[in-house]
């Protein structure tokens, strides 16, 4: 039914997918950003979406998040997805605990927020203000705020782009660990080829509003992809690798 997502039978049998996108169309007036896009992300599957600036990858993420209206096709997700943006978007007037529990409607929201902050290593700072955090810490809180909602789909919009290299590597490990534990489907929009290789089960390259290339990194039958191949897909000729 959906050609781009051939799924390993084991996971398919157990759980419904995190999201299924069919024939999606996004346009601003006459300008078509996304045309006929199909995508399926399974629970626990980590998908990285690469692409040049302006190829429509953030537009796709925003459509999946329900932030923008779509002009055609269908997005079916069981529940509202959680999003982590490039900026942390913490409310400066709320403590970390209140930030993480924002929008959480369960009666034990505070305890869950505290537990989620503990998971990202900031359990000691429940009552601190966001302004006292470093960039990496703020992004960890944003991650906790997304995961505390127990989303079935987690959307990451270049969440590590503004972090320094060391912090980024630590964040990669943390995200991978938390995703493995909670098993949401993940769509990571990124510019960083190495990040995509390090984190994703599946790498998609988007071009002119459609998915132009797909690669599974963890499947046994597929050979591991080189950085240069991916860069070539992105229109960058890497002389060093050649």
């Amino acid at each position, binding site marked *: 039914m959906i050609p781009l997502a051939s799924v390993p039978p084991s996971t398919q049998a157990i759980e419904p997918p995190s999201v299924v996108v069919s024939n999606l169309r996004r346009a601003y007036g006459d300008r078509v950003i996304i045309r006929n896009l199909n995508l399926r992300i399974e629970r626990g599957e980590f998908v990285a979406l690469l692409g040049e600036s302006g190829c429509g990858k953030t537009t796709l993420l925003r459509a999946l998040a329900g932030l923008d209206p779509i002009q055609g096709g269908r997005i079916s997700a069981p529940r509202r997805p*959680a999003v982590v943006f490039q*900026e942390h*978007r913490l*409310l*400066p007037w*709320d403590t970390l605990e209140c930030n993480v529990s924002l*929008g959480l409607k369960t009666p034990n929201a505070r305890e869950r927020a505290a537990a989620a902050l503990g998971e990202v290593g900031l359990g000691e700072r429940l009552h601190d*203000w966001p*302004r006292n955090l470093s960039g990496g810490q703020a992004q960890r809180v944003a991650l906790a705020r997304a995961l505390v909602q127990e989303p079935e789909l987690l959307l990451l919009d270049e969440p590590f782009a503004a972090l320094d290299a060391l912090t980024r590597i630590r964040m990669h490990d943390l995200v991978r660990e938390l995703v493995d534990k909670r098993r949401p489907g993940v769509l990571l929009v990124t510019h960083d080829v190495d990040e995509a290789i390090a984190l994703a089960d599946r790498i998609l390259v988007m071009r002119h509003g459609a998915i132009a290339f797909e690669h599974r990194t963890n499947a046994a039958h597929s050979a591991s992809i080189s950085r240069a191949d991916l860069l070539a897909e992105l229109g960058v000729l890497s002389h060093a690798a050649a």
Partner: protein
Amino acid sequence: MKEFSLLMTASNKDQLVLSNFEQIASVSDFDRTGNADTPSSQRGPAPLLGKRGLLLLSWLAPVTLVIVWELLAGAGWIAPQILPAPSKVVHTAIKLVTTGTLLNDLGVSLLRAIAGFVIGASIGSALGILVGFSRIAEAAIDRSIQMIRAIPFLAALPLVIVWLGVGEAQKIFLVALGVTFPIYINTTLGIRQVDPKLIELGRIQGLGPFELIRRIILPGALPSILTGVRYALATAWLALVVAETIGAQSGIGFLAMDAREFLRTDVIVLTIVIYALIGIAADAIARFLERRLLAWHPNYGASR
């Protein structure tokens, strides 16, 4: 009036610049020593005057002025009808307090100010919220409000007297009129300036419209609203001085005009000092509110 508001703007700007400067200073401090708790005495090269020295210096001029004034008045170089000695003013203050008239007049004045402020702030914030949230409301009423705002509100005084006479209503109305606009403008501005990215986040976290306003829009608008409150307190006080100067039977302004009839400059100076003190108190209240409500804000927060 115009001059006054210009002055207000200038002094407010100074404070803003000052607080930014302090912040920068404390940041560089942090960088150098790696310890945020470094006492300020260790900052930079050895200063000519310590912190206490500077504090003493800042009090030197006003204290000297009062002493010179006292000496000149005591020596009879300044006629008491022109300017009474500071000690005489203090004496008069004590006398008026003990007879109860001063506290009574002060109470009357404060009550007028509070009543006018509450009415003006309610109208200003209600209109501000309406216009801040609704483009339709903005189109419908913002232009009219801006036109009325262009009138220096004290210029409307003769008309207000024709409408309401010189009783309590006129005084409260004038205060309310002066308070409404700064509150209105800053409320609207505050709501409009809330980061749209945070509102978007609120939607993603599943907040309904009411929760969105309570958790994101109003807290985001609060710094601006409190700036409006601070301006409004100053305006309220100015409006009261003017309103009480005309046809009052009680209040601080009445005390001053009554004293003028008898050339009691000591009482007049006393009322001026009282107006100043209450102005300072009002500003202190506004600052306290900022400190408490904006503890999260890098420019206001008490715990830096």
